[in-house]
């Protein structure tokens, strides 16, 4: 978990890992693949829920996920299955034919998470995933992530650790003053 106040560099770090920004120095490897040298291969292993959800308001939930399954190059026989599975897993089946533009913030966040998890990435990046969600929605969100954590690495950013504490094994604390980061294990973080 990347923890820190606004402006401390959490989103930038996630964007760097996702290959959306090129680092000044250093290298980033996803499953042993350098994201900036071989981005097309590395991105197959990566799922990202950005701070600003990349949703098309004029599409329905299912249409959007079908599009994502195509552009993430999920093989055709599996793509329908993958969409149905993720709709089921994130309890989006009932609203699959609803336009994204009319959904509530919480539902949009779930659709955003669905697009990030659709291709079963081994690394899942989540930028402030619980922003705008109420307590119940957050709890359900964390439940889904706890399930997913069994098969993938999850890196998430938040500016308060209370709700996502159950999810993380390691915390990297960002401080805005000196732009430094400190790494804690979970016990230290929660005390």
């Amino acid at each position, binding site marked *: 978990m990347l923890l820190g106040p606004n402006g401390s560099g959490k989103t930038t770090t996630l964007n760097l890992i996702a290959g*959306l920004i*090129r680092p000044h120095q250093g290298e980033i490897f996803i499953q042993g693949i350098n994201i900036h040298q071989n981005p097309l291969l590395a*991105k197959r292993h*990566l799922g990202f829920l950005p701070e600003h959800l990349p949703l098309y308001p*004029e*599409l329905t939930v299912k249409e959007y996920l079908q*599009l*994502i399954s195509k552009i993430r*190059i999920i093989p055709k026989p599996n793509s329908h299955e993958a969409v149905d599975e993720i709709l089921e897993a994130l309890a989006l089946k009932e609203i699959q034919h609803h336009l994204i533009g009319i959904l509530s913030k919480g539902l949009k966040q779930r659709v955003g998470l669905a697009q990030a998890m659709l291709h079963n990435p081994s690394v899942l990046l989540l930028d402030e995933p619980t922003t705008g969600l109420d307590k119940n929605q957050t709890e359900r969100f964390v439940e889904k992530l706890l399930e997913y954590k069994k098969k993938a690495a999850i890196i998430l950013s938040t500016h308060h650790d209370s709700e996502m504490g159950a999810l993380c094994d390691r915390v990297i604390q960002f401080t805005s003053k000196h732009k430094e980061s400190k790494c804690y294990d979970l016990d230290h973080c929660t005390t």
Partner: protein
Amino acid sequence: MIWTIAQHEFSKLFKSGRLWKLLALSQFVLGFIFFWLVEDFIFKSQQSMMGSSTEVFGITEKIFHPLFAWTTLFFLLITPLLATQSLTQERKSHTLENYLLSPLSAKTIILGKFLGLFLTQLFLLLPLVIMPCLILIRDPLDIGHFLTGLLGIILLLGTTLSLGMFVSSFAKEPLIAGLTIFVMFIVLCILEGMGQIFGHNGEWVAEFALLYHCKNFLSGLINTKDIVYYVAMSGFFLYFSMRRLSKEADYRKRA
């Protein structure tokens, strides 16, 4: 994959309702000009029959030649609207991330978006194809001349769209992108006039003008040089759009 992106671009405009508005506008503008030209043609042919005019003219020349010229102008005005949708608008609404996070090359993304918007332009051009059918009901038409003019317009649309996509590939604000594309169109159009100022020596400047190469097509002539110009210009701008998109991560760092 190119086709998937193209389909999405096309259907996105349909579903958002923007395409219907543009289609209504093109139908109204081109229809109005068409009927105005037909009325003028009928008036002149009546004068000719009464002997008050000795001018000899044909339907294709008197109706479709000016109609094509108006169509060109109309599309120069609406292409910036379409082109800014391709990348600038997506960048602003953060939906470009869908593509940037996917294992797709910049080439695939740009070609897919180009194809989708090009199909949109062709769809908007549909009223122009329906109009000769109305004439054909009663009078013969020089189909060859008509199709050549149509080919010229299609090639011009492809070029203007690729230029628009190039601007859209680096612009951050849709309004700025639209204005820049429009200004570039104007500059590329006035090159012809600038070339004429320099007389014979300035002919090569006129060769770069957008509409200069369309004239032959509108007159019913197919010149390989004109086709090469439009294809080369489209390829040039698409190539640089791909280059820019593949470097998106570098530019985001500087933002």
